[in-house]
């Protein structure tokens, strides 16, 4: 639906694309087939699993049923982790925006006169992708460890009281999420800003707008589509992330997110209906949150 918003907006802007043609339909077929096979079928299987009831005789076996109580049970049991997930994801998205926007502005606008530097800076943003994010996350765990440089430095400045650790805290998890999603935030904003016609900004100045109000009234609205896709690309996967918050990485028993709950239910407890119900709840919640966001920010016209 978030993507639906993009789609309708795009077609509204370019009415030519609306013309129906059999070739377009034919070209669409592989995509539709792919979506049908790899999205709809698993989704249906997920819905069926979420309504199953346990086999009375064998542990870990389930029968098809219509046990909608599964949803009530998981919500009652795991609402704190669900709330935490969206909280962490929201904070991480905000942090990534605060870091990603200036970065994108610098690369897209300030470095415009030096294409080589611009290209180099872009490579640096993408460079972390060359290494598995699992390894990078483990590396942060080492850097933040109790005997590591960060804790030692902060303690010597008396910023961090003795006995307080970074790894396993909410800070570490949000840091990990922010760090891992910065490129996803920066790149869409960069593509918006890179196309920005600087004559608009000049015009703002000519009309006696302060730099501040030029930024808020000209630059920011023009970058809105990028900010929009950047925040969505960050928030949606971050809410379901189970790596950063995992006890094996940056998290601890205090930081479990909904992804970790699903993992535990699926792998250890073998409670497949609960895991499926939680996944669907997560999908629904994200759908609602994102559609409210798209609606409220009213960016459809801008896209």
């Amino acid at each position: 639906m978030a993507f639906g918003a993009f789609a309708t907006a795009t077609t509204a802007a370019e009415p030519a694309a609306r013309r129906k043609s059999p070739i377009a339909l034919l070209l669409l077929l592989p995509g539709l087939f792919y979506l049908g096979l790899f999205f709809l079928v698993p989704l249906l299987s997920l819905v069926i699993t979420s309504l199953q009831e346990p086999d009375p005789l064998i542990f870990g076996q389930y029968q098809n049923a219509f046990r909608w109580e599964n949803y009530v049970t998981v919500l009652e049991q795991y609402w704190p982790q669900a709330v935490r997930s969206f909280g962490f994801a929201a904070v991480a998205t905000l942090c990534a925006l605060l870091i990603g926007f200036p970065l994108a502005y610098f690369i897209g606008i300030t470095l415009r006169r030096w294409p080589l530097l611009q290209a180099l800076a872009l490579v640096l943003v993408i460079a972390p992708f060359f290494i598995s994010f699992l390894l990078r996350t483990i590396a942060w765990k080492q850097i933040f460890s109790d005997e590591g440089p960060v804790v030692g430095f902060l303690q010597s400045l008396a910023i961090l009281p003795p006995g307080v650790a970074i790894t396993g805290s909410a800070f570490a998890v949000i840091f990990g999420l922010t760090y891992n999603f910065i490129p996803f935030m920066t790149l869409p904003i960069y593509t918006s800003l890179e196309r920005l016609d600087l004559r608009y900004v000049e015009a703002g100045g000519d009309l006696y707008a302060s730099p501040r109000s030029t930024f808020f009234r000209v630059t920011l609205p023009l970058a809105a589509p990028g900010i929009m896709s950047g925040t969505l690309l960050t928030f949606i996967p971050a809410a379901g992330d189970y790596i950063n918050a995992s006890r094996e990485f940056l998290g601890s028993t205090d930081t479990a997110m909904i992804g970790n709950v699903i993992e535990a239910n699926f792998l250890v407890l073998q409670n497949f209906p609960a895991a499926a119900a939680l996944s669907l709840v997560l999908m629904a919640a994200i759908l609602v949150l994102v559609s409210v966001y798209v609606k409220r920010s009213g960016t459809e016209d801008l896209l």
Partner: protein
Amino acid sequence: MHRPLPEDPMIRSLIAQAKRAQLSRRAMLAGTGAGATALALAACATGAEELTPAEDVSDTDKTLNWANWPFYIDEDEEGGYPTLERFQEQTGIEVTYLIDVDDNNSYFAKVRDQLALGQDIGADTVCLTDWMVNRWIQLGYTQELNKDNIPNAANLVESLQNPAFDPGRVHSLPWQGGFAGIAYNVEETGEVRSVSDLWRADLKGRVGVLSEMRDTIGVIMLENGVDISGDFSADEFNAALDIFREQVESGQIRNVRGNAYTEDLVNGDTLAAICWSGDITLLNFEAGYEKWKFVLPEGGATLWNDNFLIPIGSPRKTNAETLINYYYEPEVAAEVAAWVNYITPVEGAYEAALEIDPELAENQLIFPNAETLAQAKIFRGLSAQEENEFQSAFQSILLGS
């Protein structure tokens, strides 16, 4: 209408599938939507019908796939496996050694759908921990071992011959075993001798424990004086769980982790931990000196084994049995144990090790004597209901709810 089913196990299971699908009206209804959905459903559907072992083609197919845990077989500097290479030369069976098992649960999640259909999971033998083997046997996911092909099985130590989950070792044979005990950093903290010592004030926030319920709760129960191999009650389990919850919530326990707990010991996040015996030997070897000391807690340690089993869909059972037989030769077992630092279940390996390396043979973590073994207990098998209840309670602490 009662015609005998065809011999081919694949076709038999397909027919069984089709029959079940006919019976289930809901499955049919859902299936009418799309053919693909029906297929997906068939794959997801689970039933308790009798599974039949795959036909053995070992006579013509001289290959074997063996799934095992990381660092669980002797390796040489080029990354080869010396004992396994000798096996291939001797028997002509070509073995593909797969390091596929990182966790009992996630491995099971990966293969359970195929097992439920009696299909080949891509491994002809796999080594899994006692309680998981128990689950496979109960579900009928294993083939019976033909001991005629494994004469060396007579070398199995007596204490492991009749576990509750597999009396007489019909379906499984141990590969390696180990203790869960306590390790502490000798440079950073004083002696830790019991589980209670882990709750000392100077270790606050620096204690790690394992996410394996049977080991962590097991050693706490032993500290409470409960015999974990006996018929303990839910109350006794919950008493230990309460201690665990209290220590997690107060922040005494820093983290609850799987294999990755060794990283915490190395980077100093934890100074003492409930851990597995073989890992500490390896950590000290990498550090170059005895930085961590492993102790069997005063209350007692848990003892576990990983066992060979042959999945129901494996068509190379005899080859797998030939391999198991080979690893039950005392000399071979001693060579493996010397590298992996875990306990070998093979009688006579100790004597064989004495000849190779007397110092090694005296290592109580690899060749424990009767006195050492008396300090360790095996966690008893849990009923499905207990498993569900205990695991839910344990996981709820790990998830902080």
